[in-house]
């Protein structure tokens, strides 16, 4: 009968990180992936945050398929005709070991998984884990797959089974993700020659630009849009909460179309050829939506554990961090000769709490609800801001004092003084 030290379910960033760390430490590891290859079913914007991967594969830059390192970040508020926002560009980001890269996940994940194999893990693709196998006391002792009735045994199973955590659900260790806790994001890959991208975004070599936008483009729904520069393509996408799509009846592709036609976006993607359309769920419930993360013989990592910081657009890095921490917990317990009981595996939870992962998610624990209940941030404010900027910049003989009064009046008629102060307080509270 087959028995491994650990089984990892899933080959996304969290699963690959966990499997790599376990295999590197010399444990016998089986990784099971549903897709044809690692990355064939995975979707992300996608930005790679270097630090989290560096902790696992320090010299990844030498061989990982990376698109562009980011030197400029644009945050835009959009109304229907304008954008107003901030750009931050710094030559400091042209460092020896850049901090953020755009990547194409289909290629990146394949590479990451090849490292997992090199490290010595056994990787089996095109196989769906149906459920966790338990002993008579309820301890998880392995997995069952859709290939046959056999049970593959392991001391511990790490669930990196993604946002829906279908294996976790079928095994009764977590509930179905709530529509309020998941965003549905859609994305297109627009191919453009390298030189065109470099001209349009004012970059050279492998420099890249990121645009994050919110405003009326989401048609009253809470969500954000993005445009990332890859080597020879642009990733253009938009995402909103599933519950909002459900209640409004708006379709994601209608919204994406609106974003692509926006006068600030259209010239950037003009003449491109769309080669890919993808959609995926993103767990955005934050700290309060995090399920139970460990039990007798099992651990949960990555999207499956709701590890996404929607405010800072962080997810794949948290996946890598949690995958690594779970694996390190298992490696340490193994070295100490301890069994994979719930009490012993609680060390994973403790490690998480002490790290930036949980600290950040805790910091924004109220944010999802506050944003959900205050749509004015994507409806009223973009218009107010645009009107104010337009009034301020237009030279038309109106005395500046009158301009200031007009701007203030617009804001007051838009939100009233109490509303404005209330919104400021809400944001401050959510931020705290």
């Amino acid at each position: 009968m087959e028995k491994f030290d650990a089984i990892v379910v899933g080959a996304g960033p969290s699963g690959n990180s966990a499997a790599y760390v376990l295999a590197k430490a010399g444990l016998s590891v089986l990784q099971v992936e549903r897709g044809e290859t690692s990355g064939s079913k995975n979707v992300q914007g996608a930005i790679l945050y270097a630090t989290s991967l560096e902790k696992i594969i320090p010299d990844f830059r030498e061989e990982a398929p990376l698109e562009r390192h980011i030197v400029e970040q644009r945050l835009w508020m959009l109304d229907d005709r304008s954008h107003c926002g901030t750009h931050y560009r710094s030559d400091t980001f042209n460092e020896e070991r850049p901090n953020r890269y755009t990547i194409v996940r289909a290629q990146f994940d394949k590479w990451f998984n090849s490292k997992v194999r090199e490290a010595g893990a056994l990787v089996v693709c095109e196989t769906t884990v149906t459920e966790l196998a338990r002993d008579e006391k309820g301890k998880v002792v392995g997995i069952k797959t859709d290939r046959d009735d056999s049970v593959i045994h392991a001391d511990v199973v790490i669930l990196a089974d993604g946002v829906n955590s279908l294996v976790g659900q079928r095994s009764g260790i977590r509930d179905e993700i709530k529509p309020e806790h998941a965003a549905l994001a859609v994305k297109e890959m627009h191919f453009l020659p390298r030189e065109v991208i470099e001209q349009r975004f004012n970059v050279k070599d492998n420099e890249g630009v990121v645009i994050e936008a919110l405003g009326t483009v989401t048609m009253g729904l809470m969500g954000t849009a993005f445009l990332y520069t890859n080597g020879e393509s642009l990733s253009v996408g938009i995402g909103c909460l599933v519950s909002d799509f459900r209640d409004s009846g708006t379709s994601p592709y209608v919204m994406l179309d609106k974003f692509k036609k926006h006068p600030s976006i259209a010239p950037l993607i003009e003449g491109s050829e769309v080669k890919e359309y993808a959609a995926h769920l993103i767990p955005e419930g934050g700290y309060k939506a995090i399920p139970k993360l460990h039990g007798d013989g099992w651990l949960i990592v990555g999207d499956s554990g709701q590890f996404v910081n929607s405010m800072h657009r962080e997810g794949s890095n948290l996946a890598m961090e949690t995958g690594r921490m779970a694996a390190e917990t298992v490696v340490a317990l193994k070295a100490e000769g301890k069994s994979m009981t719930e009490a012993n595996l609680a060390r994973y939870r403790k490690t998480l709490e002490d790290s930036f992962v949980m600290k950040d998610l805790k910091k924004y624990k109220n944010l999802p609800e506050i944003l959900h209940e205050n749509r004015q941030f994507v409806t009223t404010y973009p218009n107010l801001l645009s009107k104010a900027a337009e009034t301020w910049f237009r030279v038309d003989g109106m005395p500046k004092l009158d301009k200031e009064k007009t701007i203030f009046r617009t804001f007051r008629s838009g939100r009233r003084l109490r509303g404005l102060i209330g919104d400021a307080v809400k944001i401050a509270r959510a931020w705290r």
Partner: protein
Amino acid sequence: MHIVVCIKQVPDSAQIRVHPVTNTIMRQGVPTIINPYDLYSLEEALRLRDQFNGKVTVLTMGPPMADQALRKALSIGADAAVLLSDRFFAGSDTLATSFALSSAIAKLSETDPVDMVFCGKQTIDGDTAQVGPGIAKRLELNQLTYVEKIRAVDLGARKITVERRAEGGVQVLTTALPCLVTMLEHTNTVRRGTMADMLRAARTEITVWNAAAAGIADIALCGLKGSPTVVKKVFAPQPRKEKAKMIEAAEGGDIASATVAALFAADGRLEETLFRQTGA
């Protein structure tokens, strides 16, 4: 019973794109698959293996990345895999390919005599259907192509009886082992490997042979040198200039009459010819 199944890694033709300007095939980034026709032969070989408790070796010739195709075949249930890979093999046509493969099969036979060789009916990238018969000829195997069904194999009498689809009917053929079989598509359902197969496939070392290891002494018979076929030109046919016409029935009329009228209107001679033929 030792069965060798020859497979080929091919670009997934469903996902190949033609460059809009140069009209050349864009191979970059196109996923590769096992030639679909080969899978029916693999399945048939596995069934015989299961029945007679034998061994199935999958064999392919290609670049190092062709090991993916072999690993896939192992995960479906094959027992061993051999990759023929050498720069001398580059540019092989069907003559050179069948030479290299038959040399490797002869080499395999030295340690474990081969009773049957299976090939796909043809590949989806070359479509020649020449390599299987080429191997049979070189190894002096009886060849059974376009087989629909294997009726019986008698290992004691070293005999095989198959149903072969031919023009105008089905032939029932009996011949002596060893033999070479190419299976028709959709003649069986390719199995999904068990978890044990998957684990075995992930663990199996794939044997890689260069020309020398495959027992090939004369490399002039390999690759481009051993290939008399010359590719003169590759092109995509020009799209037709004329556009499709929509034919709609007039108010109260039927679509058939409208179609006939439109055909006659398009070519006046058509009506005349038709009436002459029918004698009307």
